[in-house]
């Protein structure tokens, strides 16, 4: 509304400017040659001043004066000519005044977006988080971390989000910072290893291998680290060693763990390689192409991609309701996407699939991730 008021005000100013000559009394029309005569008179006066200052010699001045006098004579001959009479063209004036709003508004009506509010960044950052998009939330977290670079819990929250939205390099930096600030843990080192191998197109290089090894030093039973170390062996061609490690992993961990399924698939693939029918296994996380694609996407497409990833996760949890890590990811994803209701719904559904201890762990996790109103 305010916009239209201002717009109308601007239009009024513009129209008044055009109308101006009709609002005041016309000045008496001046003969055309009179202006020329005035210039020449000024020139003669200037010449006298120059002579007085001694800038030019008297004889040169005389010559110049003669020349100006010739110009004056020519101009005075014309000065007698009558000024053309002015007609009063009211209609032309009305058309000129009306042209301003008509042209202005019709152009604006086609090109403008009057309903779209301005969105200064600072204001977007202070809005209610529930109304922010994932990108805005990430940007908020980033500006928070820029101001508080030592906030370990901030890095802990943002690192997996970076992984999820495909900003792998940022995820690696976040995990490294987190480990530096909050110390090592098997989970953190394994997550760092996973980020590093995602960056390397699923190939486990020396740095990601070192991260998994550090994770296993801290917790020799860590499922993710064990899985990827086995994968590293497989990629190095030591298929026997890889098979043995995956087999013992399946035997060791909770059968509901996602790593059991992943290990089974890996084993099947290894068997195929042994039969010579498939390439060496690679990590099943998002490939570099997918990550690159996510980076190239527009904001809308990226949001759609995240939505579909989350929907896939949601659907898989309906089949495997005992997957605590999966539930955690889902709850975190919904919170990040600004859908706390969906997160709450997920927690209610998780209660049926999880035992009470693991459900309590999920609730604690959700609370730490910023979920409110639990219980």
């Amino acid at each position: 509304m305010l916009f239209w008021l201002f717009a109308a005000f601007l239009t009024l100013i513009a129209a008044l400017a055009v109308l101006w000559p009709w609002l005041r009394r016309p000045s008496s029309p001046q003969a055309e040659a009179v202006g020329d005569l005035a210039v020449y008179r000024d020139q003669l006066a200037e010449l006298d001043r120059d002579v007085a200052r001694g800038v030019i010699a008297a004889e040169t001045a005389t010559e110049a004066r003669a020349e100006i006098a010739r110009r004056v004579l020519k101009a005075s001959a014309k000065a007698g000519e009558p000024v053309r009479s002015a007609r009063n063209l009211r209609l032309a004036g009305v058309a000129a005044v009306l042209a301003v709003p008509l042209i202005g508004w019709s152009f604006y009506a086609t090109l403008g977006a009057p309903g779209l509010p301005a969105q200064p960044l600072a204001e977007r950052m202070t809005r209610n988080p529930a109304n922010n998009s994932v990108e805005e939330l990430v940007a908020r977290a980033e500006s928070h971390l820029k101001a508080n670079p030592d906030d370990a819990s901030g890095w802990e929250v943002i690192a997996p989000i970076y992984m999820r939205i495909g900003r792998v390099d940022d995820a690696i930096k976040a995990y490294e910072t987190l480990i530096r600030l909050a110390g090592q843990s098997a989970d953190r080192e394994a997550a760092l290893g996973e980020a590093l191998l995602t960056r390397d197109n699923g190939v486990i290089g020396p740095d990601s291998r070192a991260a998994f090894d550090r994770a296993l030093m801290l917790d020799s039973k860590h499922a993710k680290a064990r899985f990827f170390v086995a994968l590293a062996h497989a990629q190095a061609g030591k298929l026997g060693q890889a098979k043995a490690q995956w087999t013992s992993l399946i035997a060791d961990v909770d059968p509901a763990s996602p790593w059991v399924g992943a290990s089974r698939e890996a084993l099947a693939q290894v068997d195929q390689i042994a039969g010579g029918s498939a390439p060496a296994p690679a990590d099943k996380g998002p490939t570099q192409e997918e990550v690159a694609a996510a980076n190239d996407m527009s904001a809308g497409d990226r949001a759609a991609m995240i939505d579909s990833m989350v929907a896939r996760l949601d659907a898989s949890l309906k089949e495997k309701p005992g997957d605590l890590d999966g539930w955690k990811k889902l709850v975190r994803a919904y919170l990040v996407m600004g859908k706390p209701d969906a997160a709450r719904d997920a927690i209610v559904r998780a209660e049926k699939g999880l035992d009470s201890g693991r459900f309590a762990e999920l609730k604690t996790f959700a609370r730490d991730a910023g979920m409110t109103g639990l219980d």
Partner: protein
Amino acid sequence: MIVELGHFALTLALALSLVQAAAPLAGTTLGDHRLMAVAGPTAMAAFLMTALSFAALMASYAASDFSVANVYANSHSLQPMIFKLTSVWGNHEGSMLLWALILTLFGALVALFGGNLPERLRANVIAVQGVVGVAFFLFLLLTSNPFARLDPAPIEGEDLNPILQDFGLAVHPPLLYLGYVGYSICFAFAVAALIDGKLDAAWARWVRPWTMAAWIFLTLGIAMGSYWAYYELGWGGFWFWDPVENASFMPWLAGTALLHSAIVMEKREALKIWTVLLAIIAFSFSLLGTFLVRSGVLTSVHAFATDPARGVFILAILVIFIGGSLALFALRAQTLNAGGLFHPISREGALVFNNLILVTAAATVFVGTLYPLFLEAIDGSKISVGAPFFNLTFGALAAPLLIAVPFGPMMAWKRGDLFAATQRLFAALGGALAIGALVMLFVDRNALFAALGAALAAWLLLGAVSDLVLRAGLSKGASVSWSRLKGLPNSVYGTALGHAGLGLTVLGMAMTSALQEERILAMKTGESVEVAGYRLDFKAYEPTQGPNFTEDRALFDLTGTGGEALGEIFAGKRVYQARRMPTTESGIRTFGFSQLYVSLGDPQDNGGIAVRIWWKPFVTLIWIGGVVMALGGLVSLADRRLRVGAPAARRKPVAVVQ
């Protein structure tokens, strides 16, 4: 809301420009005073609306409002505020809005200060200015709208081209545009005169200061752009004969010619028709420059975006304005009276000589710039016309002009005496030859070019001084001379400064080109290198963090010729995060007028890094000369006197040619 108000104000500015173009023209045709009087207030309102629009865009940049497509595409939330603001014109749409802003500003100035202009001339001038405005507002709104919106708004912008993230962007484009667009006023005066078929005495009075003002801005803009390219691009050169540079140089050459012919016109009412034609040519070159840069025909730093629709639109503007005004010229030129007579050896004759050479030089640059484009359009072959062509042709044209410069102010109006002028320049000539010989003997025996350049520069400088000294009258005693020197009009000082500035620029170019020293080598930390007696010790290579970039800095300890420590000098390579684009930051240390210039290349396999070091003697004079020239223009502009050319009395009968 601010963004949309800006957009709305822009559409109003278009509407006002249409009225500004149509109503006064109708007024002068029908003889209606009220319709003619519409010109003034409408021009001021159009400026007000454009200024609001520009302010709205600037506010959006300052607030990082990424819902504006232009802001999203050309800025980043982490940029320092100064670069957020300069980003406004660091892109195609914003720079065209700046163009329109300056155009309407000049229209408003004519309306505001043009009270003493004859009514019809004033109405026609503002109307022509309005026609130009309509073309550019339509161009903005239809092909390059800076207020296009994005919904949903992205969270981070794509950042400005890193090369443009420099203080140079704050200065160079506005100055250049003030120059380019300043010629639009001269153009409007020329076309207005042609429309009415008469040249008033006030015409000349008005055109000269406008030409001068535009010329000052253009000179400063080009000098600034040249210095910016010198320190930012890391090539160590000051002029590359790049098509975009040429695009700004052509209007400068034509404008310099116009400046000189406007003097003749004001003082002697001669060369009227030629001046009208030059005014049209100067603005045509400005438009051509805009076309070359903005249409994407040329690939360079300046071509922000390429879009065929824009190219066609600008081409249409070009054809309509240049073709239209030249057609009008052909139609009306006979009806203008030719004005004063003069002898070929006279001040006027010297200025005609200047004009002929400058226009030929502009034509040469024009051919060299457009020939490759033309050839590519015909048979698709890509050739590049580079420095050798321009140095040869342009140099050959410029040399006689530079030699002739000191003669000009020595000549009397209407009929002069070449022999007497030469006699008066004897001291300057002797000094110039002596300096050339000194350079040859003591600086470098093989540098003929440096010696010639130095002699030519000295000739220009001493010629300018001789002019002042002779006017003061040396023989009449110190106190008389002093009072006469003080009494000299500003325009005399302006001329002397302008010509001396030219001399300084020539000196800088000749010395740098002929005597610079260059070292290119791979260096590791701990190594040292010696250039022109200065020693650089590569001390460290370390990363630093800027607001929106990371930079690897090479630090050198600098030791002077006498072994004295001169502190540090550092050069860097930056990578801007958003665009992942590297830039070089050269390290420059100034000693007097000379500079030591360090620039980094690529890292080498053996762990070293490529380093280029130049010693550039007197290099800063190139730009100081430009500033002195502009200063001369300013001094001359401050001279509010009317100009009367006092012709010399006829001593003996001579044949007068027309």
